[in-house]
C-alpha cells in the first residue's frame, strides 16, 4: 500500500504495528460494506459524484447537440426538458456538493491532524444515503419519468394538475432523502473541525480549506431546512391535497420561490465556497508562501456565509415584489461581492509576492481566476434589479452561472484533483497530459459559455428546446455546441490522466509539492491511522515549520501516539488545547442497514405503499436504537 514510509522517528515499529492492527482493515466483502475509514468514504464520494457528473455532463452534451442548429429534432421537447432538469439537479445536488464533501472527507482529518472524522459511522451512513438518493433520482430516467420542471421546480407548474405522474415526486422525495446525507455530513464536518484538531491548531492556525468547509457546513445546516420544507409542502400538496401552493384555496405560488431561494442562494456559496477553499489550499505550494492576509480571507469566508442568507430575493426580481424590497435585496446582493473581492486580491497578491511554480494545479487556478472573475463581474450586474429583469431567465444568466460554477467550483476541483492525486492514490500524474487537459477545458469552457452572454442579450430565453433560425441566435449556439465538445474532450483527458496515473504513474513521495498543510506529512497514500504521531501544531503552515515537524519526531510523546486502541484526540474548540484521547467507532454494517431502510421508506412513499413505508419507518427507528445503544466500554465512544 504505502510506498515511501520508512520508520518514522517518533513512533516505534511496535507502536506502528499496533496502530495498523487497530485501524487497518483486511480486504473482504464485509469490510468493503462496513468501512468507516474517512479516506475510503471520501474516495467513494469522489468517485460517485464523478459518476453523476458524467450522467449530467452527457445530458448537457445531448442538449447542446439539440441546440447546435435551429429547429433541430434530435430530442423531443419532453426529452429535452427532462434532460435540463436532471442536468441542473444532478450538477447542483449530486455532483458539486458531494464532490466537495468527498474531498473534505478525505482531507479535513488529514489537514487538522486527526485520525478520523468525529462521527465515523455517521460518515459512512451519509455516503450510503447519498448513493441511494442519487440512484433513486437517476433510475427515473430510463423509465421516462424523470422530473422535467427544472432544477428549481417552480409551483404551480409542479402541482399535480400540471404535472401528473411520479416525476415531481421523484424530485421531492429524492431531495428530501439526499438532504439527510448532506445534513449529517455538514454536522460531521463542523464537529470534526471543532473537536478533533491537532493540539496547538488554534483557530488562527486552521487551514483556509477547513475554514471553507466549515463555513459551507454551517450554511448547509441553516439553509437546507428551507429546501426540505419546500419539498415537503409540495409533496403534501400533490399527495394529500393540501393547499400550500394552490392560489384557489389561499395558497401562494411565490412561497415556493421564497423558500427555494432562501436555500438556493446560500447554496450557490455552498457550492463555490469549498472551491475557493481549494484555491487557498493549493496556492501556497505553487507560490512558495502562505496566502496573503489570512485574517481577511477568513473574515471574507465567514461574512459570505452570513450575507448569503440575505440576498435570496434577487432570484425573484421579475416576480413583481414591492419596490422597497427590491432596493434592499439589490443592496445586499451588491455588498456580497465584496468578500469575494477580498479573497481575489489576496490570491493575486500571493501570486505577485511569491515565486510561481507552473504546474497543472496552478494552471487550473489561473483558469479559475479568469473564469470566476468574469462570472463575478456579471454577478455584480445581476445585483441591479433593473438589469436583472432584462437578462434573468435568458441565456445571459446561463452564461453567468456557468462561469461562476465551472469557474468557482470545477476549476478549483480540477486543480485540487491534480494537487491531491499523489496523496490519494500514491501516484504522480502525467504533466503533459494534464496540460493538454487544462488548455482544452479552458478553451472549451470559454467557447461554450461566452457566446451565451451575447445571444442572451440578443433575447434568447433559457430552457427552450429549440429556437427559430431567423433571430440571430444560431451562430452563437453552434459555437457553444462546438465548445461543449471541446470541454468534454478536455474532461475526458482529465479522466484518462487519472487512470494513467493510477495504472502507470510513478510512485509519489509524501510531499511532492512542498505543501504547507499537515496532509503532506503523511504517507502517500496515508496509512490507515493517518499519523503515526499526532502532531503538535506550532504555526499556520505546520509542514513548513520545524517545531511541528519535531513534534512527530524527536519530541513525539506517548499521549500523541495513542497506539493502545483506535484512538484520536479531542482538543478544545477555540485554542485546540489537549483535552483527552478518545476511542473511535469501528467499522460497522449498521450505517448501510439504516440507509437501506430509508431507501425502502422513500421508495414506498413514492409509490404510496403506506404499509411498507410504516414498516420501513419503524425499522429506521429500531436500527437507530441499535446503532446508538450505549456500550459498556470504559472509554467514551464517539459516534
Amino acid at each position, binding site marked *: 500500500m504505502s510506498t515511501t514510509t520508512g520508520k518514522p522517528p517518533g513512533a516505534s515499529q511496535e507502536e506502528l504495528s499496533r496502530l495498523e492492527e487497530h485501524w487497518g482493515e483486511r480486504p473482504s466483502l464485509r469490510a468493503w460494506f462496513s468501512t468507516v475509514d474517512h479516506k475510503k468514504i471520501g474516495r467513494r464520494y469522489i468517485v460517485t459524484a464523478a459518476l453523476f457528473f458524467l450522467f449530467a455532463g452527457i445530458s448537457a452534451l445531448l442538449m447542446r447537440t439539440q441546440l447546435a442548429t435551429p429547429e433541430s429534432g434530435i430530442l423531443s421537447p419532453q426529452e429535452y426538458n427532462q434532460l435540463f432538469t436532471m442536468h441542473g439537479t444532478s450538477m447542483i445536488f449530486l455532483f458539486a456538493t458531494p464532490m466537495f464533501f468527498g474531498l473534505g472527507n478525505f482531507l479535513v482529518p488529514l489537514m487538522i491532524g486527526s485520525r478520523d472524522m468525529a462521527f465515523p459511522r455517521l460518515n459512512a451512513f451519509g455516503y450510503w444515503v447519498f448513493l441511494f438518493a442519487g440512484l433513486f433520482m437517476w433510475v427515473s430516467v430510463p423509465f421516462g419519468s424523470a422530473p422535467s420542471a427544472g432544477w428549481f421546480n417552480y409551483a404551480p407548474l409542479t402541482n399535480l394538475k400540471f404535472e401528473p405522474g411520479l416525476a415531481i415526486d421523484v424530485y421531492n422525495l429524492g431531495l428530501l432523502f439526499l438532504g439527510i446525507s448532506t445534513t449529517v455530513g455538514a454536522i460531521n464536518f463542523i464537529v470534526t473541525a471543532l473537536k478533533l484538531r491537532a493540539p496547538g491548531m488554534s483557530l488562527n492556525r486552521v487551514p483556509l480549506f477547513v475554514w471553507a468547509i466549515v463555513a459551507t457546513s454551517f450554511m448547509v445546516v441553516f439553509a437546507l431546512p428551507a429546501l426540505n420544507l419546500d419539498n415537503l409542502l409540495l409533496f403534501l400538496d400533490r399527495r394529500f391535497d393540501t393547499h400550500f401552493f394552490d392560489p384557489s384555496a389561499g395558497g401562494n405560488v411565490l412561497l415556493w420561490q421564497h423558500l427555494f431561494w432562501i436555500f438556493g442562494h446560500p447554496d450557490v456559496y455552498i457550492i463555490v465556497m469549498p472551491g475557493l477553499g481549494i484555491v487557498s489550499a493549493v496556492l501556497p505550494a505553487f507560490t512558495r508562501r502562505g496566502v496573503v492576509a489570512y485574517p481577511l480571507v477568513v473574515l471574507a469566508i465567514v461574512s459570505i456565509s452570513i450575507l448569503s442568507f440575505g440576498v435570496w430575493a434577487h432570484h425573484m426580481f421579475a416576480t413583481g415584489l414591492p419596490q422597497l424590497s427590491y432596493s434592499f435585496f439589490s443592496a445586499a446582493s451588491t455588498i456580497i461581492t465584496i468578500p469575494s473581492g477580498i479573497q481575489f486580491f489576496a490570491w493575486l497578491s500571493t501570486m*505577485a509576492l511569491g515565486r510561481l511554480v507552473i504546474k497543472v494545479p496552478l494552471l487550473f487556478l489561473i483558469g479559475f481566476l479568469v473564469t470566476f472573475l468574469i462570472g463575478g463581474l456579471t454577478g*455584480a450586474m445581476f445585483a441591479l434589479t433593473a438589469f436583472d*429583469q432584462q437578462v434573468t431567465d435568458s441565456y445571459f444568466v446561463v452564461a453567468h452561472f456557468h462561469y461562476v460554477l465551472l469557474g468557482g467550483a470545477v476549476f478549483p476541483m480540477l486543480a485540487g484533483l491534480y494537487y491531491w492525486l499523489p496523496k490519494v492514490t500514491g501516484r504522480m500524474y502525467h504533466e503533459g497530459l494534464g496540460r493538454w487537459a487544462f488548455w482544452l477545458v479552458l478553451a472549451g469552457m470559454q467557447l461554450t459559455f461566452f457566446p451565451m452572454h451575447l445571444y442572451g442579450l440578443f433575447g434568447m430565453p433559457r430552457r427552450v428546446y429549440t429556437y427559430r433560425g431567423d433571430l440571430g441566435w444560431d451562430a452563437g449556439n453552434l459555437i457553444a455546441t462546438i465548445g461543449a465538445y471541446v470541454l468534454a474532450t478536455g474532461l475526458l483527458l482529465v479522466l484518462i490522466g487519472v487512470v494513467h496515473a493510477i495504472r502507470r504513474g510513478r510512485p509519489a513521495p509524501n510531499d511532492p509539492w512542498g505543501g504547507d498543510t499537515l496532509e503532506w506529512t503523511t504517507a502517500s497514500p496515508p496509512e490507515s491511522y493517518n499519523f503515526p504521531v499526532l502532531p503538535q501544531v506550532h504555526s499556520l503552515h505546520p509542514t513548513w515549520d520545524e517545531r511541528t515537524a519535531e513534534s512527530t519526531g524527536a519530541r513525539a510523546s506517548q499521549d500523541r501516539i495513542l497506539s493502545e486502541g483506535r484512538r484520536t484526540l479531542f482538543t478544545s474548540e477555540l485554542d485546540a488545547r489537549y483535552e483527552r484521547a478518545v476511542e473511535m467507532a469501528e467499522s460497522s454494517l449498521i450505517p448501510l442497514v439504516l440507509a437501506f431502510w430509508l431507501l425502502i421508506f422513500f421508495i414506498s412513499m413514492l409509490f404510496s405503499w403506506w404499509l411498507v413505508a410504516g414498516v420501513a419507518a419503524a425499522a429506521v427507528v429500531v436500527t437507530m436504537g441499535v446503532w446508538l445503544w450505549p456500550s459498556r466500554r470504559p472509554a467514551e465512544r464517539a459516534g
Partner: protein
Amino acid sequence: MQTTPSANRRRVRPRPVGAALLSLCLLTGCAGDSPSALNPGGAGATRISGLWWLLFWISVAVFVEVMALMTWALVFRRGAVRVRHSQPMRFVAVAGAGLPFVILVTVYGFGLHDLAALGKSPGRDAPTIEVIGHRWWWEVRYQGASGVTANELHIPVGERVRVRLRTDDVLHSFWVPQLMPKTDLIAGQERQTWLQAERAGSYRGQCAEYCGTQHAHMAFMVVAEPRADFDAWVGRLDAPARAPETDAERRGQQAFVQGTCAACHSIRGTDAQGKVGPDLSDVGSRWSIGAGAVPNDPGHLGGWIANSQTVKPGNYMPPQPVSADQLPELIAYLQSLK
C-alpha cells in the same frame, strides 16, 4: 437606430461602443433582426441598455486590471525570484474591498435610479392591454374593446401603454427585450408593466419563465403603429370578423363552425364560441401560427390543422379529422380573416 430625446441620457451614447458590439456581433455572426436588448426600441429597454454599457465598461476595466496583475506575476514572478513574505493587508483591503465598494455603491445608485424609472406606472388614462398567459399562447384583450385576440399586441407609438398580466395556469414571464424587461405572470395574482415604443415596427417577445413542454414556442409580437392605426385596430375588435366572400371561404366557415374547431375556438359574429384555444377572428393577419412556432402561410396552416402535434408537440390541440377537400377551404377561410 433613431435616438429620441428620452433616450438621450446622462450616459455616454455608445457610438464607439456600438462599433465594439458590432465586432462582437460579427464574431458570432449575429443577424440584425435579433430581438436584442441592445437594440432598444423604447424607453424601458433604452434605459437598461444604457445601464448595460456602463456595467460593461466597468467590467472590462476591472477585468483588464486584474488580468494585468496576474500576467505580470506569471511573467516576472517565476524562476529565480525571491519569495517576499510581506503581508500587504492594506492593499488587499483597499483593492479587494474599498475600491469595489466605491464602484458598487455608484453603480447601485444608477441601478436604483433606473429601477425607479421602470417602476413609474403610466398615467390613469393610458391605453390598457390585458395579457393572459396560457400554456402555450398569449390571450390579449384591450380595454374598451369586446373582442379578444392572441399572440399579438398593438400599441400606439410614443405612448406609454399599461399592460396587466394574469395567468390562466402556471407561471409565465412577459418579455419584450427591445422594449421592456421581464415581468412574471403569477398564478392567482395580477402584475403590471408598461410598454413604450419610440419607433414604429414589430418587436418580438417571448415567454421567459419555464412553463412546461412547449415553453420554447410561446412567443408574441408587439406591433407599434401610429395612433390612428392603433385606434382602427382596437375598433375592429368590436366588429364581427370579416365575412366569407368566396364559396370556398363560405364552405370553410361552415366546416369551422360545424366541425370540431368551434369546440375550442371562437370567431366573432359566428356560432363558433369555444373558449379553450385562442380566438381566431383575425387569425389571417397574425404574424405566426402556434405562438411563434411556424410562419403564417397556407401551407403551414394546413399542416397545423391536420396535426399540430408534429409542429408543436405536446400542445393541447389534437390532430383534426379534416377531409382532403375540406382542408383547403378551411385554410382559405382562416387566411381571409384579417
